[in-house]
């Protein structure tokens, strides 16, 4: 039966086979053919994402990560948290009801790289910010099964004793500005001090942090330790900002897709 269906195309197949039979003698013809054939799809799908304006919503009030939050994000990446936690709420009713308004493109506008994730071994974290207290987050990271007996998450108790390395923060913010995050010279210059200041509510650095990153910046002793700024401070500061860089999703009040 297949033969009957294909019969009208016999001439075409014949031509194609004969042409290919000649072409496949030239390694460079194959090379260019492969690059051409494989190049089209990627170009058509990726290039317009940079040029079509409504790909990413515009929010002039979009906040930047503070140095402490960015340091926490780097720890989140270092520990591979993204392997089990997504940060992308899909436009499905049950997800919106479980996690909150679906994620917008603008929310990860300054995420280099994005951490949308691909697997939910644990729950989505796109809107976990301020859902739990700092204390809960710290205790959960130190011993997940003490708070959630069914949890299979690894513990991260060592973060509480690891002093946060802040010397490289100006460099890191500089690199982020190179790829498009609008950090100012002032922010880059003071990055190391601001990271400490954000976790030290009593210090005189607080004013600078609030001045540079806005009134809404959470200035707290995130890990409960006042003797040093730890990696736990940074990670919890990051977790508490998730979903709170912009309130556009709440404003739009998205209706879930049917």
């Amino acid at each position: 039966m297949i033969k009957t269906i294909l019969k009208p195309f016999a001439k075409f197949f014949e031509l194609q086979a004969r042409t290919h039979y000649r072409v496949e003698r030239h390694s460079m013809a194959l090379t260019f053919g492969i690059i051409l054939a494989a190049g089209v799809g990627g170009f058509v799908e990726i290039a317009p994402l940079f040029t079509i304006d409504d790909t990413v919503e515009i929010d002039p009030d979009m906040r930047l990560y503070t140095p402490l939050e960015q340091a926490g994000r780097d720890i989140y990446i270092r520990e591979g948290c993204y392997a089990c936690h997504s940060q992308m709420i899909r436009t499905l009713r049950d997800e919106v009801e479980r996690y909150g308004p679906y994620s917008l493109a603008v929310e990860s506008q300054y995420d280099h790289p994005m951490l949308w994730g691909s697997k939910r071994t644990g729950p989505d974290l796109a809107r976990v910010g301020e859902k739990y207290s700092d204390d809960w987050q710290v205790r959960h990271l130190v011993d997940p099964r003490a708070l959630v007996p069914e949890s299979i998450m690894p513990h991260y108790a060592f973060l509480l004793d690891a002093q946060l390395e802040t010397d490289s923060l100006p460099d890191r913010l500089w690199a982020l500005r190179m790829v498009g995050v609008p950090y100012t010279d002032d922010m880059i210059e003071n990055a190391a001090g601001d990271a400490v200041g954000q976790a030290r509510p009593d210090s005189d650095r607080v004013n600078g942090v609030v001045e540079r990153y806005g009134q809404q910046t959470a200035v707290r002793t995130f890990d409960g330790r006042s003797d040093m700024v730890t990696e736990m401070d940074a990670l919890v500061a990051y977790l508490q900002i998730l979903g709170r860089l912009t309130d556009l999703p709440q404003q739009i009040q998205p209706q879930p897709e049917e």
Partner: protein
Amino acid sequence: MMSNLTGAERTSAMLISGMGVVIGLTMAIVGRNDVMGAQGWIVLAFSAVVFFMVANALYHPEPTEDRTTSYYDDPTKVGIVLALVWAVVAMGIGVWVAAQLAWPGLRFDAAWSSFGRIRPVHTSGVIFGFGGNALIATSYHIMQRTSRARMPDQVTPWFVLLGFNLFCIIAASGYLMGVTQSKEYAEPEWYADIWLVVVWVAYFVLYIRTLARRNEPHIYVANWYYLAFILVVAVLHIVNNLAIPASLAGAKSYSAFSGVQDAMTQWWYGHNAVAFFLTSGFLGMLYYFLPKRADRPIYSYRLSILSFWGITFFYIWAGSHHLHYTALPHWVQTLGMTFSVMLLIPSWASAGNALMTLNGAWHKVRDDATLRFMMVAAVFYGLSTFEGSFMAIRPVNALSHYTDWTIGHVHAGAMGWVALITFGSIYALTPVLWHRERMYSAKAVEWHFWLALAGTVIYVFAMWNSGITQGLMWRTYTQSGTLRFSFTDTLIAMHPYYVARALGGLLFVTGACIGFWNVIMTIRHVSKQNRELDHPTSPKATEPVLPVAE
């Protein structure tokens, strides 16, 4: 082995590994306040070992053999052994990672042993360590045989093979120290990425130069697939890894892309790593070893053309099916879904072509476990490409995405297709490479086959159940219209499947260990046998006529 290099070749090998020592030392000094320093010491140690191995043979007598009368197989042999070492290690770590999900206490207390850090060691170790070494080694074998020509020189193949393994070692050790870009299957940081580009360019040049020396007018289909593998992986790797390092003295870098563009670029890369690393290259393996082992010609020349260009063209579009219902614009999602479904045609054309080739040789499939490895691999290839197209349909993806169904699908492909075709090819190749009569133990090959198949089936069924159960639980509502299950409820439901999955993986890695043992015993204990017709021939051999119509 080093004695087969000429004096000049030994010198340039020492020069290259000496440069490696210098680069390693530079990294160690410049990055002393960062994890990059530790990576530098690893580069230094690796290069120093190579340097001294060559230096040790520097004053051995020059080789006297006539290079035009034989193929150059030394790097192929080392590549095959390295592939098996990576298989045992990386699959073993896979079992450990899987067990951590069933029994989280198995993480123990070290910082480096958490799921997040060792999972990429498993994925990269299997894909790049095992798969990559197998691809490089078999490509060396196949490009010489199908061109009836020897490789142009003896240093480049070593550079590519060892350089690639250095990349894998930097990557794996880096993950344990927390060095990662977080881009799945592209986790290594900027210096490792740059190094891989250097290695890859050398690989491409080596391939093209060998093809240029061929004594056969036509380039065989296996080579098309290897070429596509080399070329497209280069493009994907370079674009997806574009990044600005925070400092040249540290490992940390930030991706050039952000948010939605980064997500699309990442999954354009991620899905085509599946296409051009885990499919294209292994199809090259299949197109050579399956017909050789079955002693039957490829069923259809035209299906080969159709499926090759179909795969090359369609696959690239499919990446956006990883981002259904996300903030990625709808039109890109739709394109990804459409092309993923169309992709089934060239995929099944390939699988069908392989299975039809076995017509007239099915009794061999019954008797010969090596050929059975390849046959079952082709079947799994057909099944998992069907599953892939199915899962790319938006409403199906709504259920399957973020769940273990994805993991099951990937492992149906990785274990059932990629690993089985590789093991089959290794069993077919080992006696040829080392000039042995046969494998040491045919019974061990049987055992490996059944352990691998049982392991795969248990694994995949466990993940199907787990994934679909969890997906359905997430979207179950009570009669009053509220969500029925909390996230932790689903975790309890997953537990038995996670135990089964670890068991399936354990069976699979046991098979790999048996395979490794069998290959080593073959090299050491099976008597020699010279192979006829396994040497380059003159270009005078007559050209075949036009392919016979089916």
